[in-house]
């Protein structure tokens, strides 16, 4: 993996037509501006991962396993 240090308002280029500009840095956040052609899809990674998670979660449910989880959680609650 390539790692580059950048300051506010500096940018990097990916290929010829994608520019990533560091627009603001605070304590635990960085604001990024992206210039890219329309056909390039830009997604926050956790959003793509959530889609993927939902796909797996929507598969036909396994009633036996769910009952097992449910009973375990109920018994934990009783013992609290």
């Amino acid at each position, binding site marked *: 993996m390539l790692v580059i240090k950048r300051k506010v308002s500096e940018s990097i280029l990916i290929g010829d037509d994608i520019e990533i500009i560091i627009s603001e840095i605070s304590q635990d956040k960085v604001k990024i501006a992206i210039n890219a052609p329309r056909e390039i899809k830009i997604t*926050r990674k956790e959003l793509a991962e959530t889609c993927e998670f939902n*796909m797996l*979660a*929507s598969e036909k449910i396994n009633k036996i*396993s769910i009952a097992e*989880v449910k009973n*375990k*959680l109920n018994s*934990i*609650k009783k013992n609290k």
Partner: protein
Amino acid sequence: MYRENKIKTRDFGEITVKKEDIINFTDGMYGFEDYKRYIILKDAPEDDVLFLQSLDNMELSFVLIDPYAIFNDYNPVLTEEDLRELNTTDEDELKYLVIAIIKEDVRQSVVNLKSPVAINPKLKTAKQVILQNSYPLRYSIISTLGGQ
């Protein structure tokens, strides 16, 4: 519009839907944006495991878990935009449920703590939100279940 309706679902057979139980997801669930109306099903009142059944696609359902049953310190922080869409300014006014992937070997089951379903119980609106918190997207429930 109907007041009460019977539908036939893939996972729960025939269920009766009351109009007041319908929850509207303005954006749908991520990856399933076309389906906006859902109902929450529960086998018993004390259960922490619930089901989210789509009313627009009978084949679509999710397993939901009350996050507080597995993660005591769950303290969701939403973006201002998400709060606005849910018509509130206070995270505590919303109810949260997390999506689970329950595996046949239940010790491999995971929940998504990063992107819960946030529900406004008064307005019956909901949104799957991506939290500002750095919670894991795949949180194993094995330690909760007491497995090795």
